[in-house]
């Protein structure tokens, strides 16, 4: 009994330390990636290539004064960072990094992750409410609307993944991808999962609930010092969670053809895949402008949710009729390509319309000029 308790305490302590190290590396990686995308150098002064910059930032945050607004709802203001932080760490208890490398491998692991990650939304809303600030309340409202909406496609995609190996155990799901990773069977699922996941952690194309130019930091506007650092930590841990889940659910996790069977190889494999997904998420941030709130909601409800049901339906048909893997992969790929082309046309439409208008004007002008000369 006591020994179990000590072992669990040590494991949780190691987990938190490892995740904090990951967050520091992500902060450095994000600043460097964004700098490269914008033809800058990024942090260069503290340590070689600015490697110690995140450590300096963390120290600065911890020694800053922690201000609590006089009119704030103090219990909520104090509790909100914890309610955001605890679920985003608790779900790591069941995430495996190799076949037998998880704190607790649960039979309902994936469902546990989905259920507990929803709890941190309550913390964001609490922060928005407790700050007694109109921008914070607006940000809290936005976060509630956004996170609840994007929860649905994530759950539907996760259900479609669960259907393939008939299990919610993450180890079984990864072992089911020995022959073929689910990214090839369900490319549509991977795309929806990544987009909805980025929205769920509120990273840049979908960060309307703390958009600086609109609600000035939203729910976190009144937070400073260590309290704010906790939110910051939770955001990066959530980003990494989405990346690791994408690696485990779709990219085959540690099961990868042509790789030797060893725990450390599998561990490295998951880590490399997760960091690649993280790089894609940072690339999104450096490339796409922020969506408007109406665009965000209509993208969630009119595009991602119907698509997640299509993904679910395709998988169900594949399993029910016992079709070949090729048919599911091709059908899913076809839907993905069609959707991507439609979105591309919609996104480039204003530019094309303007170009055509100008071209028509130039042609009309030239016609007038030539007739005049004649």
């Amino acid at each position, binding site marked *: *009994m006591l020994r179990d308790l000590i072992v669990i305490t040590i494991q949780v302590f190691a987990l938190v330390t490892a995740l904090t190290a990951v967050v520091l590396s992500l902060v450095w990686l994000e600043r460097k990636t964004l700098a490269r995308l914008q033809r800058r150098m990024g942090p260069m002064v503290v340590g070689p290539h600015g490697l110690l910059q995140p450590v300096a930032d963390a120290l600065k945050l911890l020694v800053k004064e922690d201000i609590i607004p006089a009119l704030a*709802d103090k*219990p*909520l203001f104090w509790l909100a960072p914890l309610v955001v932080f605890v679920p985003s760490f608790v779900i790591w208890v069941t995430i495996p990094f190799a076949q037998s490398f998880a704190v607790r491998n649960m*039979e*309902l692991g994936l*469902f*546990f992750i*989905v*259920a*507990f990650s*929803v*709890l941190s*939304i*309550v913390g964001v*809303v*609490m922060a*928005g*409410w407790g700050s007694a600030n109109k921008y914070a*309340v607006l940000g*809290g*409202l936005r976060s*509630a*609307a956004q*996170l*609840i909406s994007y*929860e649905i496609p994530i759950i539907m995609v996760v259900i479609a993944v669960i259907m393939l190996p008939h299990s*919610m155990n993450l180890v079984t799901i990864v072992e089911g991808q020995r022959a073929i990773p689910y990214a090839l069977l369900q490319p549509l699922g991977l795309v929806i999962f990544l987009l909805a996941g980025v929205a769920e952690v509120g990273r840049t194309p979908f960060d309307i609930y703390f958009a600086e130019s609109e609600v000035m930091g939203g729910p976190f506007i009144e937070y400073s010092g260590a309290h704010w650092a906790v939110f910051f930590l939770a955001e990066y841990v959530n980003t990494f969670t989405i990346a690791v889940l994408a690696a485990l659910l779709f990219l085959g996790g540690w099961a990868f053809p042509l790789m030797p069977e060893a725990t450390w190889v599998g561990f490295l494999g998951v880590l490399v895949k997760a960091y690649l997904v993280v790089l894609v998420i940072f690339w999104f941030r450096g490339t796409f402008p922020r969506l408007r709130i109406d665009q965000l909601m209509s993208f969630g409800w009119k595009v991602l949710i119907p698509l997640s049901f299509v993904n679910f339906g395709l998988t169900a048909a594949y399993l029910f009729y016992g079709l070949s893997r090729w048919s599911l992969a091709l059908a899913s790929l076809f839907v993905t390509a069609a959707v991507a082309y439609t979105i591309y046309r919609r996104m480039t439409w204003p530019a094309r319309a303007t170009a055509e208008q100008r071209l028509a004007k130039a042609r009309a002008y030239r016609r007038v000029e030539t007739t005049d000369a004649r």
Partner: protein
Amino acid sequence: MTPLVLFYIAGAFALGGAVGVVGTRNVVHAALFLLVALMGVAGIYLLLFAEFLALVQVLLYGGAIIIVVLFALMLTRLQEFSSGVMENKQWPIAALVSLGAFILISVAVARSQGGAITDRAGPGVLLLGESLFTQWAIPFEVASVLLLVALIGAIVIARSGEGEP
């Protein structure tokens, strides 16, 4: 021994949360106390080896319902709630209903046999899903139709307020 201690902890959360819901004068605090109470109930489910039910409780009540309640509270004018008035004319009816429910539950608990702590696991997810979609398919569908009716009704009420068709 340990399950009993955990049961008392979970029960304390559920009861304390419930007392908080009716005791606090702040509506937002009441909603969050409700979350505490529901999480306590999830803990009790967990002790009864109903892991799936416990997780559904966390997902649906913790995630969805409390957030929707908070969302609705933030959209309303809170000055109307902050007056500190905690009773209205309907309190005798509410007291009667609560008393009736309390008696009903007490009698039901008193008349049911058992009560010993067992370590028998309930049916797994596989069995649950199978019975839900084969034996109990029609009640399941009726429940979903009920939810659909509520959803459509809410949309109709919301839209008729704007004067649109």
